[in-house]
């Protein structure tokens, strides 16, 4: 008993510092990326679409044959790589945000319904979740984009239709535990309408839970977008997506590896920041670690 009530070090000092620094460092880096995306037109030294075939594949500044005008060199079409990298943040974050809105709307609604009504509704929605989980996501997304025609909007809708599962699972569990709490029971007793209870009472009570899912899923979306673009069925050229830039750099992989190293590093850094932030938020807000 006594041993239980005393705090074990698995929780306190070290861990809290670790998680807090996760939130602050992750959040800080994330803000830098957001600023980079929003201020891209101001920050980028060149037009990211302007080609100059006479100045193709110039190396970045740490090579001796570099050209100071293009700090990070140019790609196979002579476009300024730094500018394309900066604009790439817009694509990653934009797609991330768009997909999360679609996926969140679907997942949260399904989760609320399943958790609140239980019984057959729950069974049916759980079945939909199981079906969604069993689909190979990259392949289905590729196929859907291939047949649906590749545009940024299709890409966002397709990914949104595929990535709602975590929202549904988490919302369902949270709703189940809220449903039986006194204030909800009371509201039902005084005859509050079901949509009112669901969206005005239950939903606001799990803001922090959903926020955690949002951040962790944004990381997933960014990775999936990059993979789809890399496979040539995501963002279309000439839009500067980091995944697409890696694909474009692949032909010159052996001689100009920075073409893939740079966008990939940014991708890693962004996903790492989002994950650190999300993990930290989960540890701080959630009573239970998963």
């Amino acid at each position: 008993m006594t041993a239980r009530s005393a705090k074990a070090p698995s929780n306190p000092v070290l861990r809290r510092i670790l998680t807090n620094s996760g939130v602050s460092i992750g959040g800080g880096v994330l803000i830098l990326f957001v600023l980079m995306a929003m201020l891209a037109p101001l920050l980028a030294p060149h037009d990211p679409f302007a080609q100059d075939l006479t100045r193709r594949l110039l190396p970045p500044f740490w090579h001796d044959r570099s050209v100071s005008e293009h700090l990070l060199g140019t790609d196979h079409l002579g476009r300024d790589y730094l500018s394309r990298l900066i604009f790439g943040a817009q694509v990653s974050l934009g797609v991330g945000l768009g997909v999360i809105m679609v996926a969140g709307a679907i997942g949260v609604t399904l989760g609320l319904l399943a958790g609140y009504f239980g019984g057959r509704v729950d069974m049916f929605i759980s079945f939909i979740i199981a079906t969604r989980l069993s689909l190979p996501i990259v392949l289905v997304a590729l196929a859907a984009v291939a047949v649906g025609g590749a545009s940024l909007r299709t890409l966002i809708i397709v990914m949104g239709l595929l990535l709602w599962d975590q929202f549904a699972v988490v919302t369902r569990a949270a709703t189940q535990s809220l449903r039986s709490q006194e204030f909800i029971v009371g509201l039902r007793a005084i005859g509050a309408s079901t949509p009112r209870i669901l969206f005005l009472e239950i939903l606001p009570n799990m803001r922090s839970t959903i926020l955690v899912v949002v951040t962790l899923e944004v990381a997933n979306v960014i990775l999936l977008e990059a993979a789809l673009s890399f496979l040539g069925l995501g963002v279309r050229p000439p839009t500067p997506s980091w995944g697409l830039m890696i694909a474009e750099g692949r032909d010159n992989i052996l001689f100009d590896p920075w073409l893939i190293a740079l966008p990939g590093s940014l991708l890693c850094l962004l996903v790492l920041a989002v994950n650190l932030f999300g993990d930290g938020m989960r540890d701080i807000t959630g009573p239970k670690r998963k």
Partner: protein
Amino acid sequence: MTLFILKRLLIAFFVCLAVSAISFALMFLSGDPAIAIAGSGGRAEDAAAIRVAYGFDRPILVQYADWVWSALHGDFGQSIYFNIPVSEIIGNRIGVTLTLGFVAFAVALIVAVPLGIAAAMRPNGLIDRLALILAVTGQAIPSFWLGLMAIVVFGAWYGWVPISGTEEWQGYILPVIVLSYYALPAMMRITRSGMIDVLASDYVRAAYAKGLPAHRVIWGHALRNAVLPLVSLAAVQLGLLLSGSIVIESVFALNGMGRLAWESLLRSDLPVVQAIILLLSLLYVALTTLADIVNAMLDPRLRGGSI
């Protein structure tokens, strides 16, 4: 026990049905498949002939039933591009994907479980921190990029492994490492947290109180309970590895099912894509159902059929 398994199988059956309907529907999302086959420049008579030949003129439910019935017999139709049975093409390619997926899975498991246990033994210790770094980076690095960078560093710079496109075992080294690194973090984390929970439990203290040495407590008492959540996760991860092969196979130019799916998509060979989606989904359903059954065998509390 039997009831539990029957229930699981029933759910699995319905999921399979839904998944097959989705894969089937893909064929029709693009519009008229007959025109797709005839080519956009094809004559209307050709399209009409194809429609009859492929049976596209029949009611859609009949076509679906026919497709499912044939698929059950291993007949996924003809490839539009190669004009040979889809099953034959997939049969030639699936070996690479399964080898890659299972080997990567085994490697991930062999690393993740001991690492998770070691991390749980001393939370916040050195091993725990290293494992955390490994997990956090593993979740952030896109596997296709890691693969490319590995090719640059180990293939081109050091020349330790063939760069790509070989069916020899050396060609599998980098893909296996990259793919297992992708699966590792989740499995490591769940082993760690499961183990931490179990080590704090009374029955582990009771096992020590009986005078059992630490290794007997950990292997005999703790691990069995700590792996319960790992079983389900491992099934999910194996499914993800197999379907994630599409990216890795195209990075390393391995002639597997994933690369086949990608190529087929690019040349609009939808029957092949359909069949691969169906196969991967069914594999996933089979794996997760199997995991549930294994869990029920490991955990006697589940056997009563109360769940």
